[in-house]
């Protein structure tokens, strides 16, 4: 009897959530005046656009793209190094076992959460306004975003390390630096390497969109060719981008396997 009531309650709950979802769905369609006909006809238009305007890729000026590719890779490396440096300093101050004081920890968490939760492209376009067009705002945006991201994941992996080691070191009377050197760093290293490599992958992806707001990298070629309606060239750039991302992923994967 009791079980039956519970089942009925669960069924009612499920029905209620489905109804809620349906209402939200209908409201959304009404709110943005979602046009089903435009949507259903839009998808074939989109696909035909991709199929006819982008193929075949225009390979006439492939050599022009060498510089943006190099730029993008250099962006990634420089930004990753800076972010790793800043991220580890902030991460150490943010992680529970290594923070100098609780207040610092809370304050940094707030700042890092703000950095991360405001979208990356917004930071980039803000920095373009501040520093002018060029590679500098792009790099700074990557560093800003990367430091926030790395600080968070570094802090998380520091918090995961075995507390017994730290306790033993404390019991021996180790200073803060000795504690870091012998207790934290050895265990933190694998996490550090994994996340730093991942950050490098992210920067390659991100520099693809940086160009859209005028911050250099291979994205600027995408925007440039699309603004001129040279979609064949856009297809070439996007293909290069895909190859680049896959290659970087492969390389970092290999390094990770070797090191960890």
């Amino acid at each position, binding site marked *: 009897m009791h079980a039956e009531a519970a089942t009925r309650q669960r069924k009612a709950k499920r029905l209620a959530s489905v109804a809620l979802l349906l209402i939200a769905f209908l409201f959304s369609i009404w709110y943005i005046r979602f046009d089903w006909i435009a949507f259903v006809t839009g998808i074939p238009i989109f696909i035909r*656009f991709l199929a006819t305007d982008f193929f075949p890729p225009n390979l006439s000026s492939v050599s022009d793209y060498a510089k943006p590719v190099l730029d993008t890779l*250099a962006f990634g490396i420089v930004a990753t190094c800076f972010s790793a440096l800043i991220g580890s300093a902030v991460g150490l101050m943010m992680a529970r076992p290594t923070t100098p004081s609780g207040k610092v920890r809370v304050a940094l968490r707030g700042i890092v959460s703000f950095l991360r939760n405001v979208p*990356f492209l917004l930071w980039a376009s803000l920095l373009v*306004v*501040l520093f002018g067009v060029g590679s500098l*705002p792009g790099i700074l945006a990557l560093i800003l975003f990367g430091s926030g991201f790395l600080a968070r994941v570094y802090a998380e992996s520091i918090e995961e390390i075995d507390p017994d080691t730290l306790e033993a070191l404390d019991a021996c009377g180790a200073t803060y630096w000795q504690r870091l050197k012998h207790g934290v760093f*050895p265990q933190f290293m694998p996490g550090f390497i994994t996340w730093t490599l991942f950050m490098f992958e992210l920067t390659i*992806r991100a520099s693809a969109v940086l160009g859209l707001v005028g911050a250099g990298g291979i994205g600027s070629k995408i925007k440039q060719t*699309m603004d001129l309606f040279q979609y064949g060239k856009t297809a070439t750039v996007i293909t290069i981008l895909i190859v680049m991302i*896959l290659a970087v992923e492969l390389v970092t994967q290999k390094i990770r396997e070797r090191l960890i």
Partner: protein
Amino acid sequence: MKIPISHRSTQRQQRLFFLGMLVLFIPCLFYLDLSYGQFASGLERIPDMARQMMHLSFEELPKMLRELLTSIIIAFLCVVLSVLISLLLAFVVARATTPNRYVSAALRAMIVIIRTIPTTIWVLLAVASMGFGPMAGVVGLLLPTIAFLIRVFSDQIDEAGRDTAEAIRSVGGTWWHVVCNGLLPTLLTGFLALIAFKFEITVAETVILGIVGAGGIGVLLQGYISFYEFAPLMLGMLLVFITLFLLEMGTNLIRTKLAGKGSK
């Protein structure tokens, strides 16, 4: 006397990693040729900008909230449609349940390509083909979202469903039996957590979609940036931050709740 306690070769490889970073870093820094003057003059502009940002005005708040809702709705519609499509396709792609191995392999290759292209580029393409507006946002986001969901769904099916699928097939169940009666009910909780997670990411993405012209609050923010109106920009950034922060907390809550239910 010192006793070495760390693993020698690990240590050597880690040193090599840092050395490699340094070796790559220095030439790249020179190659990029960043100008210090540009940096300094940019920094000089920060206090002025910060001062303007501090004048928070709430004049534009209703308009912003409306556009923010549009952004969230684009994400919502896109996730709902993607879930419907990817639920079906995930069972075709997953190795445990695929009706045809070659179809599965072909779809897998397509998913890799779709996922490699950043979402923003997809939306840019959609805007180029369909014109500005929320519709382009939904269509542009649809492909990457579907690809992501199929990937994670099919991973879960492969992880959990192999035995169930085999058991049902061995008593003569059809493909529909395997999918609808065997796998969907058990995997639904896990799927819900993934959907919540994807929704969170998609909202973050729709916010920036405006920058490439696909409706939502991003259009407003981009406008404020290009007209140097930093006071409403600050408000917009705060709104975005609060929304995304609440969403993150919400999805975390859902995840822990679902995880608790699953272990019971």
